[in-house]
């Protein structure tokens, strides 16, 4: 039994620090491309105190088992490189949603997000005992859709023209992975 849920070879899942990590997350929020990839909210730079408050709220929600938030870091390095979150957990149905993001472009395409996702999936299915895990991707984000397909995520709906980004209409694509479709590798 592999009980090292939070440690991978290239990354580890860690707690968020409301003071130090808020600074880093504030810096990411000045990159509208990052925001458009990770959320459908109105893109806006948020100062560190805004993220400090958010992190503190997430910690409260974690105490209630409503949300599970992780900072992504490399072994032996305290620098925050990304964030992952399991949210909207419907315990009676064993269903939840998740998001993951690697903040800086230079930290992407190195397999760090992939390994963090593998850890997150194992946590979802082998610790939270979820039946399904879902997420949303904008139809312009082919990289994101390909990334998720590699883990077995299946497209299940397209909310037609429900996103309006940089002057163009896009579909919101819903994808999910069922526990029985997941392979722990």
């Amino acid at each position: 039994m592999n009980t090292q849920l939070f440690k991978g070879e290239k990354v580890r899942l860690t707690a968020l620090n409301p003071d130090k990590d808020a600074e880093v997350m504030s810096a990411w929020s000045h990159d509208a491309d990052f925001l458009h990839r990770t959320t459908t909210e109105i893109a806006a730079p948020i100062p560190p105190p805004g993220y400090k408050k958010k992190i503190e709220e997430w910690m409260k929600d974690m105490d209630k088992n409503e949300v599970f938030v992780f900072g992504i870091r490399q072994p032996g390095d305290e620098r925050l490189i990304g964030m992952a979150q399991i949210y909207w957990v419907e315990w009676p149905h064993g269903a939840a949603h998740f998001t993951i993001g690697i903040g800086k472009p230079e930290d992407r395409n190195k397999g760090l997000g992939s390994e963090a996702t593998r850890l997150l999936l194992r946590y979802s299915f082998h610790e939270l005992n979820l039946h399904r895990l879902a997420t949303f991707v904008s139809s312009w984000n082919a990289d994101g859709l390909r990334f998720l397909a590699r883990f077995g995520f299946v497209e299940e709906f397209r909310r037609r023209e429900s996103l309006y980004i940089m002057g163009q209409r896009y579909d919101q694509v819903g994808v999910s992975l069922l526990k029985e479709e997941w392979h722990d590798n």
Partner: protein
Amino acid sequence: MTIDLFRGKLTRLAAMNPETDAEMVTRWNEDTEYFRLLDSGPPRLFTSKNTKEWMEKRIERGKPEFLIRELESDKPIGFCALWTPPPQHGNAFVAIGIGERDYWGKGYGSDALKTLVRYGFLELNLHRVSLGVFEYNARAIKAYEKVGFKMEGRERSAMLRDGKRWDFFCMGILRSEWVG
């Protein structure tokens, strides 16, 4: 510019009043068949006071719900609302429920939904309206199709109820598809 935005053929949309309507909404939500067609959360029991506070909070946040009243008698029979998080995409989600069982399957919900969708397109200037519905709610799916909503896919086995897995259907109507 002469249409009455809040008036349909069988129903009208009215303000929800926490003072006078909380007791009725509490009674609707105690009907677990109704509640399990409406919500994926476990049915819970609330006092009228809880419901009143919840309704007041929604009004405070600027997200009030409409009361659906039957035109002929002016009797309150259900509620509906459009939620627009986040607002810049021109998309909104429908919530609708007919709490009075005597008014099920008679076109009242469809009529109120038509009025709500018209409000979304003519007043909120939405690009599309979305909704979600449980696989086992055949009557609602038929009503939504009648109003012009199209099936856009399904969240697979998103619900576990009465020991069975059910899909959660996603439906939507674009302004260009809407026949006002």
